[in-house]
């Protein structure tokens, strides 16, 4: 998704002038953007707090600013700068975190982002974008650029089924129709579940939706999803994020308030490091029950 991001930003820069700041990351990825932007591409060094304040200063002076780093270094280290300098002033600053969830795998826990959008969505004016596929990135960038408010982009690794083309980007998309429960997957996890669901007979399939924007106050679930939920009475949410502050909790609360709560609700979320051991993104997903087989088995869609 990082290559798609770079390509999308080069294209965006031609139409929407902005300043791009990186916290010394982007080797073998952002060089085309650097070459394209010239002096508007700034390596701010390993100093994320200053980088976010500088971005806020730029935006307050009328220049949209994008700031980029590995995900935890862009939302956790400079949190107060995001809260005070960016969000209190409702500024046009975009935070880009590469490697959402366990995407940095065996690099270790310091490089994982398990609470990014939950934390950031506690802040006023913030919107989180979690594209599911590489093909989403250009549309997401255009949407972020047009919004001109604080935004967070969580980049991961798109995993659509081989040979398939994802439907056009939308905050909510149905990927697989099915007669079973409604299954909402946040970001790239939708791709791995899409592949797995295609292997199930229709009567056993969940109806799979990809969710890519939060908060729900801005991007409520579509009527088609709510209608399916009314039929099956069963909802599951899967996300590579801790339960607290995640999309699952948000969706449950939204449905309760709307008087449309399902009879059954399951939430598959990141629980950290249950074994205390580390490995690839696939290892951590499996250990947390977030891989497609574990989710579908827990939902009774696969034989135990």
């Amino acid at each position, binding site marked *: 998704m990082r290559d798609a991001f770079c390509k999308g930003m080069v294209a965006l820069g031609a139409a929407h002038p902005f300043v791009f700041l990186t916290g010394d990351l982007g080797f073998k990825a952002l060089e085309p953007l650097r070459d394209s932007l010239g002096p508007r591409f700034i390596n701010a060094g390993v100093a994320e707090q*200053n980088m976010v304040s500088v971005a806020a*200063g730029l935006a307050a*002076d009328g220049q949209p600013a994008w700031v980029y780093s590995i995900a935890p270094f862009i939302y956790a280290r400079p949190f107060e700068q995001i809260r005070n*300098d960016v969000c209190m002033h409702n500024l046009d600053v975009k935070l880009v975190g590469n490697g959402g969830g366990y995407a940095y795998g065996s690099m270790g826990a310091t490089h994982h982002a398990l609470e990014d959008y939950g934390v950031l969505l506690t802040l006023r004016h913030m919107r989180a974008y979690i594209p599911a596929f590489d093909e989403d990135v250009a549309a997401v960038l255009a949407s972020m650029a047009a919004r001109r408010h604080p935004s967070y982009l969580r980049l991961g690794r798109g995993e659509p089924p081989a040979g398939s083309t994802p439907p056009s980007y939308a905050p909510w998309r149905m990927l697989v129709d099915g007669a079973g429960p409604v299954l909402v997957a946040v970001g790239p996890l939708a791709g791995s579940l899409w592949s797995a669901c295609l292997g199930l007979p229709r009567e056993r399939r969940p109806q799979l939706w990809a969710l890519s924007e939060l908060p729900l106050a801005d991007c409520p679930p579509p009527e088609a999803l709510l209608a399916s939920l009314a039929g099956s009475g069963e909802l599951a949410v899967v996300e590579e994020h801790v339960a607290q502050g995640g999309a699952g909790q948000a969706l449950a609360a939204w449905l309760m308030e709307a008087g449309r709560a399902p009879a059954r609700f399951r939430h598959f979320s990141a629980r950290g490091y249950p074994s205390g051991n580390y490995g690839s993104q696939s290892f951590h997903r499996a250990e947390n029950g977030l891989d497609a087989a574990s989710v579908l088995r827990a939902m009774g869609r696969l034989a135990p």
Partner: protein
Amino acid sequence: MDLDLPALIRRAQSRLLTMHFEAKVGHLGGNLSCLDALLVLHHGVLGPEDVFVLSKGHSAGALYIALWSSGALTDEQLKQDHRDNTKLSGHPAAGWHAGIRFATGSLGHGLGLAAGTALSRKLSGRPGRVFCLMSDGEWQEGSAWESLVFIAHQKLNNLCVLIDANGLQGFGRVDAIASMGDLAPRLATFHVEVESLDGHDPAALAKALGAAQTGPKFLVLNTVKGHGVSFMQNRMEWHYLSLDEAQYRAALKELGA
């Protein structure tokens, strides 16, 4: 500058005391130490293209008084300081006054905000200088040093930073808590322009603030916390205390009001 700056400062000191006395709030010491510099800045230096960032947000009172003194806030507005349903909170709120671009109060933010503003002007080719007022204790924030490195590296020669070096912070003397020694030579090692001066000398302030700069400029203002009121001067507790009636009358008398 054909202004009687000493007279303006005395008038502003009295108005500051009255505002804080009526609101029954403290933060007087650090307001009085930077008030002279803010008055010089707002009366004779800041132009329409310039931007001021108050990084030491706890000196909001001094900023409100400087804006009042230069005609950008009214007496009626000052009466709303620290009240309910006000814009004049104890640390500045943004979005309601052209002279207050950023909400500040957590230390170590303003310098980066000022750097971003100065960078914006350089990238866009728009005119204007950016001024930022910090405290000396604020340099204990790591983010301030991040910003210093950035400012020096980017050669932001449209940025002028004022440091209110009154030597006292929230719970003691700066030198006794986390000493940085003499800030001026330390800052100079980053290859920025540094000048130390008396922060209570209006003429020296006007000269330093108005002088052309070729690189990022840092003015270390040697100041006195609680300046102008004998029983407040150099006393840490006036970071917090509010005035009672007798103290208020005594302070006004000292200031000749």
